[in-house]
């Protein structure tokens, strides 16, 4: 198959206005300029405007699946809108060869009072299908959406999952050359998600091209090649998916990694510090085998959490705890010196306590370390830090998905021929 270019984006920029009132003013002006043919200088920013997309360039070839990742507000959806021809760029040039199917919002054309059946006809027509195409694909759409019993129910009685399933099913049967998919893998149940992934893979095999915007880095990692990482409207990294994902894992969402970043406040517990605590935690860091600070670890590598603290007076047997959370706030591992029956002994002045994981069996992602210190009984917490440091895990070439790596092996036994079973 020739590796011809399907989408070419050259220096594309798009600006948006933050203020509603100014939007009206600029809108009137721009519309007047369009109508009367005045050319206007669209290169500058007017008050309250910002570049939602700033000089983005890339190409997508036939059969490629481009992943677009980045923090919220990076301009990913704006990019898809421009590619779908829904709005025009302010600068630059976009060339698309072939027909584009944009899945920016599933079920966007649905009317709540119409039944699923009627909405398939209506939405299909809005998306450019002829009656012939709809008649041909109708059963396939219903099958794909798995809505046989509900197809004659008004869609306003659909659950949100059913609504989205029907929306995806229609879009999936559009028979387009390019699909623009915006975060649709995030909705629907597990079975439907798998169906969508299968559909995308199938579509790619048939020579279609896909641009997938997603926060699900696992899906991007397995489906996309290459990947575009965006930050505040600009291309941050564009290249092989594995490299780009590593950049994203390393630098997180591009905001300060010393703050809570993507972590919703309080998900790993509220920070606390009691006034008359004899122990104060000064610094927490993740160290590599060589004892140096490191922010990316490979799955299976050794990692040491080092907690530096000072005491105001000699303390006997304080209890230290360390917990590792993922970015959804799920606790991946937690342990205290008390539960491990490990006596800290008397401490005084400045000291560090280290917790070593000989094998860090976590899979790719960003992790947050919470630490605590309490009295010898473990009941009175002196200090708790919900976000003391974070680190990223790069699972490298491992294909496992999930949160933890479990060493595993496969085997097969033929039951008919094996004598020890019969």
């Amino acid at each position: 198959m020739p590796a011809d270019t399907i989408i070419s984006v050259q220096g594309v920029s798009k600006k948006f206005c933050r203020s509603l009132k100014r939007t009206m003013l600029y809108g009137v002006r721009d519309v007047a300029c369009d109508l009367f043919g005045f050319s206007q200088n669209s290169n500058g920013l007017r008050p309250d405007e910002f570049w939602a997309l700033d000089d983005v360039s890339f190409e997508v070839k036939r059969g490629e699946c481009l992943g677009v990742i980045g923090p919220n507000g990076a301009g990913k959806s704006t990019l898809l809108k421009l590619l779908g021809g829904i709005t025009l760029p302010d600068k630059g040039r976009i060339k698309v060869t072939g027909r584009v199917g944009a899945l920016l919002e599933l079920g966007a054309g649905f009317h709540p009072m119409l039944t699923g059946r009627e909405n398939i006809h209506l939405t299909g027509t809005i998306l450019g299908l002829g009656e012939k195409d709809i008649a041909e694909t109708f059963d396939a759409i219903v099958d794909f959406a798995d809505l046989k019993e509900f197809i004659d129910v008004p869609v306003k009685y659909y659950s949100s999952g059913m609504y989205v399933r029907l929306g995806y099913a229609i879009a999936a049967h559009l028979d387009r050359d390019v699909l623009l998919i915006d975060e649709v893998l995030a909705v629907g149940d597990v079975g439907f998600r798998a169906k969508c992934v299968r559909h995308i893979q199938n579509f790619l095999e048939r020579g279609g091209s896909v641009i997938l915007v997603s926060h699900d880095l696992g899906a991007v990692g397995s489906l996309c090649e290459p990947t575009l990482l965006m930050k505040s409207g600009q291309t941050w990294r564009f290249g092989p998916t594995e490299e780009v994902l590593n950049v994203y894992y390393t630098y997180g969402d591009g905001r300060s990694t010393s703050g809570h970043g993507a972590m919703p406040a309080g998900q790993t517990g509220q920070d606390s510090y009691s006034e008359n605590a004899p122990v104060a935690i000064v610094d927490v860091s993740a160290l590599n085998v060589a004892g140096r600070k490191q922010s990316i670890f490979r799955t299976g590598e050794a990692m040491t959490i080092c907690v530096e603290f000072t005491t105001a007076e000699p303390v006997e047997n304080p209890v230290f705890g360390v917990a590792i959370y993922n970015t959804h706030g799920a606790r991946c591992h937690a342990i205290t010196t008390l539960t491990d029956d490990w006596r800290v002994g008397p401490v005084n002045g400045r000291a560090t306590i280290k917790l070593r994981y000989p094998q860090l069996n976590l899979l790719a992602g960003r992790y947050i370390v919470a630490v605590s210190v309490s009295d010898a009984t473990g009941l009175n917490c002196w200090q708790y830090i919900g976000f003391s440091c974070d680190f990223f895990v790069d699972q490298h070439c491992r294909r496992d998905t999930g949160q933890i790596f479990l060493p595993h092996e496969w085997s097969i036994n033929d039951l008919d021929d094996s004598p020890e079973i019969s």
Partner: protein
Amino acid sequence: MAKNGAAKYNNTWFLRALQLFNMEEAIQSRHTAVAPALASREHAVDVVYTPGGMRRDGVGGWRIMFKELAESRRLIWLLMLRDISVRYRQSILGYVWAVVPQLATVGVFAFLHSSQVLSISGTRIAYVAYALWGISVWQLFAGCLSGCTTSLVSSGSLVTKVNFPREALVVAALGQPIFDFLVRLVPVVAVFVWYGVTPSWESVFIPLVLLPIMLLALGLGFVLSIANLVIRDTGNALGTALTIGMFLTPIFYPPPVRWPFSLVNLLNPFSPLLAASQDLIAQGFLSRPEMFAAACLLSLILALAGWRAFRVTILRVAGYA
């Protein structure tokens, strides 16, 4: 049970109507092969998006516009059916609501007229029949205009998230008012029979008068729908303007002849069109053919200019919905 349900709903008139429209296509579809692999397809067309790309269409743009309009006729038809079909689904009286406001308004004026509070004379046919016809035509115009104006804003994410010929939304907004007009003909005919008014046979040409009325509404509607996307005041302003317009049009009174009130006939582009329909019913010929021709021409120009303006600006303002 699901099967019975399917059979029942499969026969909703919405689906039947759209099948009717596509009979020949549906028959052809049974003998079509499965779509070939994407890569082997020869239909690939380059689409280029650049700033202000729409503006540089030139004269060839008109050809594209008519071609695309023809291509989206099925979509327009479906959107019309949707609006009509959906409107009264969760209602008991249903389509009766199409005639209630019109009957109520005329009822009030008939009462004021008969009780001599309002003294209106000089209508060529019975006053109630005259007023009912006038308000019906006016509501066709007003319904088309306000429907077109709100069509984009009320479609929300369809406009902001889907790329399709958006003029279809504006044109399809004519469907509901046209349908309502047809429903309203029932009480109109009843009143004509009751008052013994016999329209002249030339009344069969009335659709030719209604056409420029709809074109006028469509042309203004194209522009106002865009304006409404940018500034939401448009919708409110239009409501007020239509209320005033109703009284500045010879609906509840015969066309004034005395200066300066006769200006109403001259400055209001809708008046000559309404007057033409009233002429056809009452006398069978147009008393001011030149005015009618001018109004027709104006409607046509407005419709084309509005459509073009819509095309040029829609992609800029699509994000405003």
